[in-house]
């Protein structure tokens, strides 16, 4: 069905194509405007205690909006990935803006009305859909604009998701201080968040552009010295999930994320526990500084390692994340408690690999499956994140609780979970080793021809043409079915 905003007007895919001479460095800030905003989700904890006190809810209940939001992120990215690809990044960014900011406004209404379930539905369900669409919205566009540096381009955007919490956390805290941590104050804070984020994200909607046909010539020049810069095949999202490569990468992402959460989940108490018995114990206030350093490493890793992957290759960089990550966990286990700087540095590097795992995966997908539906494939791969988000905290918390019951103290509390993290990283390493180029039977035949001998059309125009053909075939098929079933069309 053709809808307003799909084929005509500001949101039409054709209107999203850049005019000649459009500077490609305008695309990363557009992506950052979205990712820095939706990254607010990781600062949800700021609202937890005020909500618990003002609405009389438990800690488990106050975590629900965030948890539902992350589940919805994975689900909506997986389900809506192909729609995002078809309708283009501007449509996706606008939908993300509407859903994410509506979620915040609904939450404001829920808090004012004293109805906590409205906050769960608003922030978790509606806002979570905005997170999923927003997360994947700029990915394939960035890869198309930066064929010479896809890892760096997606690294910038996904770094923004990490950076979003850095902005939101102090900002939300100071807002709650001035409005008050009452239902009225929290409601006002949600309202201001919704309005400010809507304005901030609008830059992305206005600025995002698809590469123009003229960019094809420029692209050839960019890739002149980069023989590996082009991918000579494309695989559709539906075919991608039938390949072992997709599922091996799913395992790689899932276990790499789980290993990072292994430290993130218990970072502050972990540092205190490791040095409790030593001559230089760490104070609780210093441990909050450690958490801040880990956030910085997580964010920096997204840009630095993902950019490095453009030089050393995607498979090699994942060897580093998984192999060196496992070794660093071993270092923490064996000599971690002997030196605070060593512990801090090892944990920071592990966290930089955690962030980098997220940031490099779109470029890895592009290498394996081409640019055709890379955003949609990325959306489906993000289900690995949802699983890891449950798996990681579950392992770490369950083992730490069991250790406390058994009377363990200090580093012993974490030994079992560290061994599990090492095992997961080794499995991830093996999965990465097993990744081979995709069997040509999964390739899209038309696109392969286009790439081998560039068509006069630009990449994106060719993609639009393919979407239109697919839509026309769908319409024809439906009409045939309706005719056969005797459906009368009005």
């Amino acid at each position, binding site marked *: 069905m053709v809808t307003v905003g799909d084929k005509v007007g500001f949101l039409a895919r054709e209107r999203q194509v850049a005019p000649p*001479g459009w500077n490609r460095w305008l695309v990363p800030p557009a992506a950052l*405007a979205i990712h820095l905003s939706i990254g607010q989700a990781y600062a949800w904890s700021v609202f937890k205690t005020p909500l618990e006190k003002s609405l009389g809810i438990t800690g488990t209940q106050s975590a629900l909006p965030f948890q539902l939001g992350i589940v919805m992120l994975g689900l909506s990215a997986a389900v809506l990935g192909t729609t995002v690809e078809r309708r283009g990044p501007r449509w996706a960014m606008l939908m993300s803006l509407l859903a994410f900011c509506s979620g915040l406004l609904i939450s404001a209404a829920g808090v004012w009305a004293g109805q906590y379930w409205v906050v769960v539905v608003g922030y978790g369900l509606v806002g979570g859909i905005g997170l999923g669409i927003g997360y994947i919205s700029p990915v394939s566009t960035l890869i198309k604009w930066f064929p010479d540096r896809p890892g760096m381009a997606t690294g910038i955007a996904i770094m923004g998701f990490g950076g979003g919490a*850095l902005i939101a956390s102090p900002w939300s805290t100071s807002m709650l201080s001035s409005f008050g941590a009452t239902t009225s104050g929290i409601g006002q804070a949600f309202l201001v968040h919704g309005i400010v984020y809507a304005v901030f994200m609008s830059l992305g909607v206005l600025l995002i552009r698809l590469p123009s046909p003229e960019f094809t010539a420029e692209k050839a020049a960019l890739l002149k010295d980069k023989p590996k810069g082009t991918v000579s095949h494309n695989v559709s999202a539906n075919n991608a999930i039938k390949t072992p490569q997709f599922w091996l990468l799913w395992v790689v992402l899932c276990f790499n994320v789980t290993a990072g959460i292994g430290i993130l989940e218990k970072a502050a108490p972990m540092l205190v526990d490791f040095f409790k018995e030593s001559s230089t114990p760490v104070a609780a206030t210093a441990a909050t500084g450690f958490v801040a*350093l880990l956030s910085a490493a997580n964010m920096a890793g997204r840009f630095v390692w993902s950019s490095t992957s453009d030089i050393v290759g995607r498979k090699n960089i994942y060897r580093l994340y998984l192999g060196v990550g496992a070794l660093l966990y071993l270092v923490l286990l064996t000599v971690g408690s002997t030196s605070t700087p060593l512990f801090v540095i090892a944990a920071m590097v592990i966290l930089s690999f955690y962030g980098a795992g997220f940031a490099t995966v779109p470029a890895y997908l592009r290498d394996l499956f081409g640019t055709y539906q890379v955003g949609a494939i990325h959306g489906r791969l993000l289900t690995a994140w949802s699983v890891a988000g449950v798996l990681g905290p579950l392992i770490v918390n369950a083992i730490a609780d069991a250790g406390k019951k058994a009377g363990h103290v200090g580093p012993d509390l974490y030994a079992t979970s560290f061994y599990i993290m090492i095992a997961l990283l080794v499995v991830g390493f093996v999965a990465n080793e097993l990744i081979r180029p995709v069997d040509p039977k999964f390739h899209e035949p038309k696109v392969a021809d286009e790439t081998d001998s560039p068509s006069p059309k630009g990449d994106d125009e060719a993609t639009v043409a393919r979407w239109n053909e697919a839509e026309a075939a769908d319409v024809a098929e439906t009409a045939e079915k309706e005719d056969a079933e005797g459906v009368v069309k009005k």
Partner: protein
Amino acid sequence: MSSPRENRSSTLLLVGAWLWVGLPLAYGLYRLFLNAAKLFV
């Protein structure tokens, strides 16, 4: 070829866009490093 005026507005747009996202990020990083400093005091 684009005119000098077009070039200037294109540069302004580029600088403005990066400031739009860069300033809040700089604020976030500043607060982060204030927190991180607690580890060393």
